[in-house]
């Protein structure tokens, strides 16, 4: 019998149905992937297993874990299971730890609670667990606080908490989504090792098919709270019998159709960055001394031709966003110059930058955070119009917004809506509409699709490609996701520790990386095609 058996599970919150007749099972030592797009009910399934659902939620059906009927269990029985037999790892490592308690306290707390051992003994076991997840004592004593750790390190602490008592089942809900690809590969390796060590069952929840394919023996695909298909990972994904499975797999590997790639064409470059460096002053350590400066961007030079699409890739914290901010004239370089269409923009005053801002726009990662929720679309999309020299009448403004919405595949009727009335993908379309309304020559896009589901991501990539074809807009994509770089860029720049360590044609750099940093990125980046092939090979 399986460790975990879900039969006929339905869930509703208030009147809204969330899950419909979900079936799923996980055996000891098995990795099961639960895949679906946002809102498909993956996280709710996990919370049902832990019985940590919102107050108004009602679940029916049967969930059996290790012989215990979860839905009928008393709260104190659940408390005894949680953290001891079932561990859970969450998506957002930055907020998953209590900021006012040390990591030692937080790991030891569950151990003490369940086993009633002394504080000293619990701390000793916490110490061992932290060593096991790759946080050695010399660098990470128990007395560290979460804010002193990076995102990847914090996720290791969360894993240590979840696995401290060697649970029979670990539920990992998007455990690597907030991390860069290299950290992701490390965390996935750690999870794989923990499963092998103690024959733990792992339910891995993810929106990323490639990640699940690399990890999971079996896969269950969820859509709108219903199981679409489930079975052996390699077979399910290679045969793609169910239309939704096919749709997901194809969207994951989608490459938009593009006009002939732009080379580094002759003529005047659109953007030229020469020897740009950005130092941040070190923290003051006493009244008279400071820690040395931090060099976020170190002597970077690059140039882009009109209409060219360039991807700037690198791990989190490598300086790519700082560089982007300087190109957008939102931050000043410590040294070096940036020229846009032949005109130097470094050191200019805000008023003088107006014409530059018109030709250079930005799209941010988070389509939720980048709009004022109390303003209508018409105002939001029209925001950049103030950089135009001409004063627009209300009718003209409305006309321009309507046109921009049309370009990104939205409707005229959307003009008077508020941001919350749109889905994540539509909101990203809104931010693209906002960026193209001034007819810019360059769009800087900072992780523009990483918050989106795969099918939406494919549509947005298509939209970028189409706007490039139609209006010759050049793009600078800032991303840690090589799939995006591969899909839509002509050239790739690999950034590492503030420096550009490799550059060249996308297919060359990503196909045959030469620098260590680029090799590490390529090796760590999950690729669905490669992962399926590897699984099939392993299974013979």
């Amino acid at each position: 019998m399986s460790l975990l058996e879900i039969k006929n599970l339905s869930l509703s919150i208030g009147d809204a149905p969330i899950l419909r007749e979900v079936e799923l099972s996980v055996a000891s030592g098995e990795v099961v992937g639960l895949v679906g797009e946002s809102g498909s009910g993956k996280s709710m399934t996990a919370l049902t297993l832990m019985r940590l659902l919102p107050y108004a939620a009602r679940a029916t059906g049967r969930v059996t874990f290790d012989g215990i009927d979860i839905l009928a269990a008393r709260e104190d029985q659940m408390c005894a299971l949680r953290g001891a037999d079932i561990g859970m790892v969450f998506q957002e490592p930055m907020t998953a730890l209590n900021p006012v308690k040390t990591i030692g306290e937080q790991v030891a707390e569950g151990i003490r609670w369940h086993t009633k051992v002394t504080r000293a003994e619990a701390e000793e076991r916490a110490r061992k667990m932290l060593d096991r997840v790759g946080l050695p004592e010399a660098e990470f004593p128990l007395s560290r606080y979460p804010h002193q750790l990076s995102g990847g390190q914090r996720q290791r602490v969360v894993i240590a908490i979840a696995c401290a008592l060697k649970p029979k089942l670990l539920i990992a809900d998007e455990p690597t989504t907030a991390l860069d690809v290299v950290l992701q590969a490390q965390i996935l390796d750690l999870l794989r090792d923990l499963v092998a060590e103690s024959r733990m069952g792992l339910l891995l929840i993810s929106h990323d098919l490639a990640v699940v394919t690399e990890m999971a023996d079996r896969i269950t695909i969820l859509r709108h709270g219903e199981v679409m298909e489930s079975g052996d990972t390699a077979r399910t994904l290679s045969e793609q019998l169910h239309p939704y499975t096919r749709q997901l797999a194809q969207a994951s590997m989608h490459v938009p159709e593009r006009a002939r790639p732009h080379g580094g064409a002759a003529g005047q470059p659109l953007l030229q960055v020469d020897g740009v460096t950005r130092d941040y002053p070190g923290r003051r350590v006493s009244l008279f001394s400071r820690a040395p400066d931090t060099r976020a961007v170190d002597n970077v030079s690059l140039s882009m031709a009109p209409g060219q699409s360039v991807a700037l890739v690198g791990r989190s914290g490598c300086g790519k966003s700082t560089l982007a901010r300087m190109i957008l004239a939102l931050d000043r370089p410590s040294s070096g110059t940036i020229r846009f269409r032949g005109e130097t923009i470094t050191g200019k005053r805000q008023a003088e930058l107006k014409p530059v801002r018109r030709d250079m726009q930005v799209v941010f990662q988070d389509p939720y955070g980048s709009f004022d929720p109390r303003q209508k679309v018409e105002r939001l999309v029209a925001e950049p119009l103030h950089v135009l020299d001409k004063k627009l009448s209300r009718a003209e403004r409305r006309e321009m917004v309507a046109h921009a919405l049309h370009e990104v595949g939205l409707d005229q009727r959307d003009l008077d809506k508020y941001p919350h009335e749109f889905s994540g993908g539509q909101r990203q379309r809104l931010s693209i509409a906002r960026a193209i309304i001034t007819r810019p020559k360059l769009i800087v896009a900072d992780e523009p699709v990483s918050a989106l589901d795969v099918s939406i991501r494919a549509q947005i990539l298509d939209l970028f490609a189409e706007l490039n074809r139609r209006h010759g807009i050049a793009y600078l994509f800032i991303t840690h996701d090589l799939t995006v770089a591969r899909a839509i860029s002509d050239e790739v720049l690999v950034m590492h520790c503030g420096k550009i360590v490799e550059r060249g044609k996308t297919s060359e750099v990503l196909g045959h990386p030469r620098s260590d940093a680029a090799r590490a990125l390529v090796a760590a980046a999950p690729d669905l095609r490669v992962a399926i092939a590897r699984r099939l090979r392993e299974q013979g």
Partner: protein
Amino acid sequence: MSAYVAKRLATAIATLVLASMVVFAVLEILPGDPARLMLGMNASADQLQLLRDQMGLNAPLPWRYLHWAGGLLSLDFGRSYTYSVPVIDLVRERLAVSLPLALIALALSTVIAIPVGLFSAGRRGRAGDTLAMGTAQLGVAIPNFWFALMLIYVFAVWLRLVPAGGFPGWSAGAWQALRSLLLPALALALPQAAILARVTRSALIEVLNEDYIRTARAKGLPYRAVLWRHALRNAMIPVLTILGLQFAFLLAGTIIIENVFYLPGLGRLVFQAITQRDLIVVESVVMLLVAAVIAVNLIVDLSYAIIDPRLRNRQ
């Protein structure tokens, strides 16, 4: 940590100096001549001039400020114009009532509010929460003098447990003195507790939505343990802020309650001093309160750093 403490301390001292200048300047600008007030309307110009010289009122402004501020540092607040006794003696006598009253009220308010806040946040939206918060709403709305009268009626007139008013002085014994402060402290504390309970509840509810609460639940801690161990400490920052503000109010803003209970507190002293134009007393009490508020804020700021390790390394 030490950098944080040093910075807070420096800010507190600078604020105190600045505040003393403002207090001094404002009272200089106000109309009304203390010398004339002391001598009455019929005094001759020579007499007036003589007294003004004696009181140092004719010296240049900066010199007078320094003299006054220097006096404050050595607890020499000058002599009251109306009572002709050292201001420090007046203040000390009144503080012996007001300080214990404020402290008892603050303690009562905290002891009532935090459990109520925890209770309500834990049962958010259910009957217990609605009832507790409805009562708190009532507590905020009822004027404290009315509430004080009700307390006198029930506990002093009807049950005869405590005196209805007056203060026997500490010389009558600590118990007697405390007994007469009990009702006023309760009257002061309840509206404060009502506000504090609402703040505690909303701070807790905000914290309970944080991801790390879910992490703690996933460890197997029961809801109540999560509330005490993880939520409360994180919710303390807004609670402490309000507590600091309340202490300042309780020390000086108690004039109505002092009147209802015939207590010789600081509030009544200031009120009398203002009506009698006893500016030196007003000045001294205001400075004392400013110093108390700044000290409380300093303590609150330092407690932030004890609660939240992220603040310790910040400048």
